[in-house]
């Protein structure tokens, strides 16, 4: 049997429609058929992690047992004590499997990774988030079944969006009233059809039809040419429509199941600056980094008075955040440069915002300056994606 990646082909959507129909009818009648939902979730997990990739399935099971043991172990510990070092140790242990997967290609530890499976990074975000909220006392009880439903929620398992435990179980443990559910269904249909347009028309056009041709010509020019610029825009469009399309499917499917998974994209290319861009692009990831890394790090620096100046504190926060984000994508020079590029961009952005605040009267603000800001941000972002694409690696280092 051949495994199926989520939302990749018509057969998957056919299975999905058939499987979701009873859930939909149930929710319309005000009921959640939990046993049926669980069976369906397991069936879709088998579809994605079974068949010819069953080794991934084994890794997933091992990984889940490990992370759940950490979460429950820490929860029981936290009811009695609250030492910082235990918390940091637990966060470290929760990240270890992902770190091994990311480090493996660098050290070439072997051809087949023992720990790797589709979606491991997204599961790690969910697990670490639970440990942090348990420490804060925000998660006051953990339930094994709910934790498994949260971690293994099949519509978002492969690439997010990254939900939050407390938000998820609030939806999962209740049934939306009929009016609300009908609105959600309307949105779901809209999202899924928009997803078809994004993923199977636009991403197909930019990514499958155009990109290989442009890449060939650009590489044939050996070095910088206008074709590199064409590649940059084409790649950026492909990246957006492909991932936004996938995210729309994941959110749409969640809505049909009565779960309001947060959206991942909100018109990122109309952002007027980089800061705004990160509030609109891959939002569940950037908000995760904001809430669980940036804000916590700044909180610590401020409370312990490690750093005096606010500006320095913010900048250390940005550099840490974007370096981790870069490394998370993979240990290659271009992902790390991508991270540093965005850290610099946002630091400069902040400098400009401070300058603007001081000289509000002297700086013109009108439709034209806004258009210019959008244009500048768009091009800066596309350039960062060109770095991210690894194209420079092919152009300069792979002869």
């Amino acid at each position: 049997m051949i495994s199926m990646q989520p939302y990749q082909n018509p057969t998957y959507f056919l299975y999905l429609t058939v499987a979701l129909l009873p859930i939909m009818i149930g929710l319309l009648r005000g009921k959640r058929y939990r046993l049926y939902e669980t069976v369906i979730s397991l069936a879709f997990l088998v579809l994605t992690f079974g068949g010819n990739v069953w080794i991934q399935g084994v890794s997933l099971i091992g990984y889940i047992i490990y992370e759940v043991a950490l979460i429950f172990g820490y929860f029981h510990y936290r009811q009695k004590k609250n030492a910082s070092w235990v918390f940091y140790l637990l966060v470290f242990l929760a990240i270890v499997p992902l770190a091994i997967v990311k480090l493996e290609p660098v050290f070439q530890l072997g051809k087949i990774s023992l720990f790797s499976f589709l979606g491991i990074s997204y599961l790690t975000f969910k697990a670490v988030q639970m440990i942090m909220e348990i420490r804060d006392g925000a998660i006051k009880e953990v339930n094994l079944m709910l934790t498994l439903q949260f971690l293994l929620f099949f519509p978002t398992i492969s690439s997010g969006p990254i939900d939050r435990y407390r938000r998820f179980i609030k939806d999962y443990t209740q049934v939306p009233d009929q009016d609300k559910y009908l609105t959600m269904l309307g949105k779901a249909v809209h999202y899924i059809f928009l997803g078809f347009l994004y993923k199977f028309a636009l991403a197909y056009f930019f990514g499958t039809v155009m990109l290989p041709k442009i890449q060939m010509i650009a590489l044939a020019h050996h070095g910088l040419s206008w074709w590199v610029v064409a590649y940059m825009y084409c790649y950026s469009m492909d990246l957006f429509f492909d991932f936004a399309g996938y995210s729309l499917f994941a959110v749409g499917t969640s809505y049909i199941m009565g779960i309001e998974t947060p959206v991942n994209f909100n018109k990122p290319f109309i952002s007027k600056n980089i800061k705004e861009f990160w509030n609109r692009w891959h939002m569940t990831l950037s908000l995760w980094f904001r809430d669980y890394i940036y804000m916590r790090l700044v909180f610590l620096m401020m409370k312990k008075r490690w750093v005096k100046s606010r500006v320095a504190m913010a900048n250390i926060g940005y550099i840490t955040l974007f370096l981790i984000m870069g490394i998370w994508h993979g240990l290659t020079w271009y992902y790390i440069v991508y991270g540093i590029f965005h850290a610099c961009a946002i630091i400069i952005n902040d400098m400009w915002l401070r300058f603007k605040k001081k000289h509000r009267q002297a700086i013109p603000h009108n439709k034209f300056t806004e258009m210019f800001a959008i244009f500048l941000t768009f091009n800066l972002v596309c350039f960062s994606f060109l770095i991210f694409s690894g194209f420079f690696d092919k152009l300069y280092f792979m002869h």
Partner: protein
Amino acid sequence: MKDTVLDILADLTGSDEVKTNLDTELFNSGLLDSMATVQLLLELQTQLGVDVPVSEFERSEWDTPNKIIAKVEELG
């Protein structure tokens, strides 16, 4: 308590708007950012003894001076 919160907010946003219009949208208007939010949480802790962990800070529940005052009353 209310005055203390408003003083903190005015100080952090560098604007008296928060004192005159208690429904000012703090995040959408760009008056508060993540950095200032962390400062707000720390000031609430030191000046009013109200402990708000970062996890409990859901932006939509804290986005106007009125909402913040209500939250502090609830937690204090």
